[in-house]
């Protein structure tokens, strides 16, 4: 068995345990709600009989362990219950709103890696000199404000004062694109409408930058720190003695081994964007999971709150597994070992 496969299996095993834990955590959060969930579901005008009927339906009179059992049994069938807010199954709601959020987070993640890593490499190559100081101040600034502050400032500068980008939404009303995946960048290409595709990208720029900024700072700082450590290694001195160019040393000998420890944290940052998307979506009226999440929270719509958190936790776990696999592929010690030493 290849070692990468072995890591995947071990990772999946741990993920199952963590997922069971997350389901318990979410179930526990749902039970600390003050008041009677049945009464909340029905509203203040319900009769005692109606409340009793709903209590029986929600299994509220049974022991807590049995209640958790019903909760998990429903989960296994992919049933997250109905939302009180939309009167539809929570799963239907999430399928509708999740793609918009994922699209935003993925684009922001791409920005985080493609700007953060080069900035970190730049700072490490010129460590102790002015490019390093400039990058340090810039990255400290980007991590020093919540994404909604960046969103508001970017909107003010590049949508109002310099009207370069749209203020809100995902696509201009002029385009009517059939929904296939829910990812507009994909759906517009399926519809072979290049102008709509560009318009979707145009709408993505500001929210994605607002979401990515602090991640770019984190990634750059981390890459710099790991690379500076690598620069002290003897093989770097060796490469310098060979007369390799500084840029070749930076890319091939200092950056590569530094990438592996950075990746884990970059994965965590990427996942944190799923939470921060709540803030950016609110500013740019982005019709994603956040708007739904905030609406259901204000209505104390338990099924919908739990469903939303569960789906985000699941996405988070998947991202972490992907990151672990990438590390396994990138690390020659794992990739080339046949015995699967991890």
């Amino acid at each position: 068995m290849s070692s990468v496969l072995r890591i995947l299996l071990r990772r999946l095993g741990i993920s199952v345990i963590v997922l069971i834990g997350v389901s318990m955590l979410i179930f526990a959060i749902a039970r600390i709600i003050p008041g009677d969930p049945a009464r909340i579901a029905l509203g203040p005008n319900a009769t005692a009989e109606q409340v009793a009927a709903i209590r029986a339906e929600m299994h509220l009179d049974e022991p807590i362990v049995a209640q958790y059992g019903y909760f998990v049994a429903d989960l296994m069938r992919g049933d997250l219950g109905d939302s009180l807010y939309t009167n539809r199954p929570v799963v239907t709601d999430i399928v509708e709103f999740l793609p918009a959020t994922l699209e935003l987070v993925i684009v922001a993640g791409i920005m985080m890696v493609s700007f953060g890593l080069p900035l970190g490499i730049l700072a490490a190559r010129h460590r102790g000199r002015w490019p390093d100081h400039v990058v340090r101040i810039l990255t400290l600034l980007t991590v020093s404000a919540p994404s909604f502050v960046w969103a508001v400032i970017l909107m003010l500068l590049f949508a109002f004062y310099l009207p370069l980008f749209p203020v809100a939404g995902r696509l201009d009303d002029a385009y009517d694109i059939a929904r296939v995946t829910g990812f507009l960048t994909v759906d517009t290409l399926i519809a072979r409408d290049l102008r709509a595709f560009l318009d979707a990208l145009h709408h993505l720029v500001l929210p994605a930058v607002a979401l990515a900024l602090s991640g770019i700072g984190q990634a750059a700082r981390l890459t710099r720190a790991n690379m500076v450590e690598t620069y002290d290694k003897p093989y770097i001195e060796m490469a310098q003695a060979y007369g390799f160019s500084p840029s070749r040393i930076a890319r091939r000998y200092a950056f590569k081994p530094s990438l592996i420890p950075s990746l884990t944290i970059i994965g965590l940052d990427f996942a944190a964007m799923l939470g921060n998307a709540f803030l950016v979506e609110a500013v740019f009226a982005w019709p994603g999971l956040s708007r739904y999440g905030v609406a259901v929270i204000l209505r104390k719509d338990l099924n919908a709150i739990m469903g939303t958190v569960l789906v985000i936790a699941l996405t988070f776990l998947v991202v972490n597994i992907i990151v672990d696999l990438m590390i396994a592929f990138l690390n020659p010690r794992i990739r080339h070992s046949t015995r699967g030493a991890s």
Partner: protein
Amino acid sequence: MIRALRIIASNPLSLMGLILVLTILATAVFAPWIAPFPTHNSAVIDFAFANQGPTARNWMGTDLVGRDIFSRILYAYRISLTLGVVVLIIATPVGTIVGLLAGYLGGWTESVLMRVVDVFLSVPPLVLAIAVLGVLEPTLTNAMIAVTVMWWPWYARLVYSIARSEREEGYVLAAEVIGAPTAHIAFREILPNCLPAIITKMTLDMGFVIIIASSLSFLGLGVQPPTADLGSMVAEGARYLPDSWWMTVFPGMAILLAVFGFNLLGDGLREVLGVEE
């Protein structure tokens, strides 16, 4: 202590961080005396001066009902800093004890405790806090609870990783050989070696708690009006962009300044205490 201060002062950025943090602390503590309009932290209405940009009377303009933004920012700092201190005072010891036990004892304790930590870390922090506040009432106390619930696992992980590597060190083995009790080894031998990392993380985390707390109140899940909070001020002002820009820009900058100060100071402390990133 004096040596540490001298090292921090020798780096202009760290010094700037220290000055920023001290200034913000002072303005928060003395807000009732510094604020030009100390009553504006409540449901005061002054329509004569409503919705005005920065003037000599109101340096940062006024909101829709005529309250002075500058005064409200000073009061909002009190809430942010209190929240940060309370969260860290609770979360740090809890996380530290869990991390120490898991890291030093190992075996069965380690597996159970760290899996629990993994569970908490596998929900994005903000989402976990939103979920807790979703079922509780949105108040300052509940916001503190929600943020604390999501914060302790990070300390557990930090201390765990240090404790696990320290447990193989000679001084720990020596203490074990002479029969020191487990609690003594964990808290008197290993814990002091975790302190530099914990202190650095606490300084940096003051900034991050302010970010998370303002994010919650931005979503309407934190401190409720009319009490001033940086996040809810930005949210309220965002509805009147671009015309009333001062309503969002100044509270937003206030968050940036405070967090930036703690980050600069934390970075400086990291160097002084020799903590790795």
